[in-house]
């Protein structure tokens, strides 16, 4: 128990008074009520725990609570005088001096002596209030230990909370996903019918396409066969014609029978016998004229043609067309034939 308090230069006050075990200090503001409590705390602890901010630095304390040069607080506790003094040295630094019953003491001696004097304890509540909640609980449970294994229980509770959090997240995510899927489903405009009906229709259609392709293949095959048959029939006709021509050639006089030096295609031979086939005939004067059906093997035909031209000329003359261009051409042609002979 603190029985006396004396200060010098502490918050500008020089206090000196006894303390009862239970004391009510009353008075107007700035009368020094709190200063006494602060001075006791400073003497015992070396700092002021009731301040808005607990300051433990000697130089700051001297600036905040002292007169800047020095301050002293001494308390009598258990009949022992405990003194704490701060003063600023010439170099500006602040020194702390501790004394027990007017004798210098180290920090540890001071603490031991206080303990022996009844261990006066003022709690630094700023420190406690500034702790985190778990730290506060830990501090209090050290003083008032609970039963059972709290550490394991706390660990299990934390794990359970985490699981709940994870499950809540998962449920929230699932709900979000379901909502999004439902929305995207409603955005799709479906035609009438069902998937099964559509798939049945597709299968029917595929079968129909297969059948149609088969029908097409058969039709194309038949058409091809028909064309082949026609081609074969045509070839048979050509062969008959060729046989007829050959027979004709064999019955013709040798003078007009062309002596084929090599086998010729039927069509070529047919072309050669074409009386209207265009060819070029060399004239006696050296130039060539276009002619039809006459060649070195066609003298018999040439004779017939000449005869025909003569008849045409006679007819035109008889018809009084002696001045017609046609008559002149006919005469000219006849001349050519005769000249060629």
């Amino acid at each position, binding site marked *: 128990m603190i029985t006396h308090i004396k200060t010098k230069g502490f918050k500008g006050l020089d206090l000196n008074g006894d303390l009862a075990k239970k*004391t009510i200090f009353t008075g107007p503001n700035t009368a020094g009520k709190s200063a006494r409590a602060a001075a*006791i705390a400073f003497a015992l602890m070396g700092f002021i725990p009731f301040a808005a901010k607990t300051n433990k630095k000697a130089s700051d304390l001297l600036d905040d609570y002292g007169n800047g040069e020095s301050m002293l607080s001494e308390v009598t506790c258990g009949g022992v005088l405990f003194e704490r003094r701060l003063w600023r040295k010439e170099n500006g630094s602040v020194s702390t001096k501790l004394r027990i019953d007017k004798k210098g003491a180290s920090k540890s001696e001071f603490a031991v002596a206080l303990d022996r004097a009844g261990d006066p304890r003022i709690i630094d509540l700023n420190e406690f209030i500034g702790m985190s909640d778990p730290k506060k*609980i830990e501090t209090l*449970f050290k003083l008032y230990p609970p039963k059972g294994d*709290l550490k394991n229980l706390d660990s299990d509770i934390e794990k359970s909370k985490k699981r709940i959090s994870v499950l809540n997240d998962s449920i929230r995510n*699932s709900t979000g996903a379901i909502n999004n899927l439902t929305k995207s489903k409603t955005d799709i405009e479906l035609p009438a019918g069902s998937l099964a009906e559509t*798939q049945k229709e*597709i299968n029917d259609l595929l079968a129909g*396409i297969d059948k149609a392709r088969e029908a097409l293949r058969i039709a194309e095959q038949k058409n091809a066969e028909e064309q082949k048959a026609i081609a074969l029939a045509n070839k048979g006709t050509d062969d008959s014609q060729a046989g007829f021509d050959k027979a004709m050639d064999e019955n013709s006089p040798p003078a007009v029978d062309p002596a084929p030096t090599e086998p010729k295609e039927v069509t070529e031979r047919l072309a050669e016998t074409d009386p209207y086939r265009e060819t070029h005939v060399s004239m006696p004067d050296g130039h060539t004229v276009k002619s039809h059906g006459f060649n070195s093997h066609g003298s018999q035909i040439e004779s017939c043609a000449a005869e025909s031209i003569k008849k045409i000329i006679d007819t035109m003359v008889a018809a009084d067309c002696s001045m017609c261009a046609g008559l002149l051409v006919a005469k000219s042609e006849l001349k050519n034939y005769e000249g060629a002979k």
Partner: protein
Amino acid sequence: MIDTEIIQQQIDGMISRGTELRKTEALFLKVQGIDETIINTQNERQLDEWALELEKENLKKLKSKKTKAVSAAAEKIESKMNEILPMKNAVFQATDGLIMGIREENGNILRYNSLSGAQEHEMNAALSNVLGANILVIEGAEIDHVRTAAMLEDLAGSDKQVLFNTCLPPRSDDWPNSYIVPDGFELIVLGD
């Protein structure tokens, strides 16, 4: 000759219709896929909800276990706080985090950080008591005289040294100019 062109036209028509049907089928399949995903997700959510219910029950049990474990300690702490608090309304719970404050008359819990100035001074003294102080310094400037009287009455029976600072010491209704000094207390009037 058979007219194959007609057959080919029929095939082309069927292929065109088939392409349309494939598009329709794709839409149906997409919707079917969405439906399946929705059902799967709903099932997963259902499982999560069941698991959540179970886990909540588990947490409840664990908290109850902890409450039992800490209740004796919490009661002691509350009791220590109430040695100082004039209204004996301390609240200390440490089952699910820390709840430290006072219970108001309507049953609401007022936590430390939301206490009024007077309540905070009372609570600080109470906490000092809990934390083992044997010198209680109480700043009673903001505490009204009724509460001060109640507080001092309680503190009179305490074995701790008490330094109570106040501008408003309790006064008698009958003699307003006289202070009431509880038994065991010494009144020091400063600034006179």
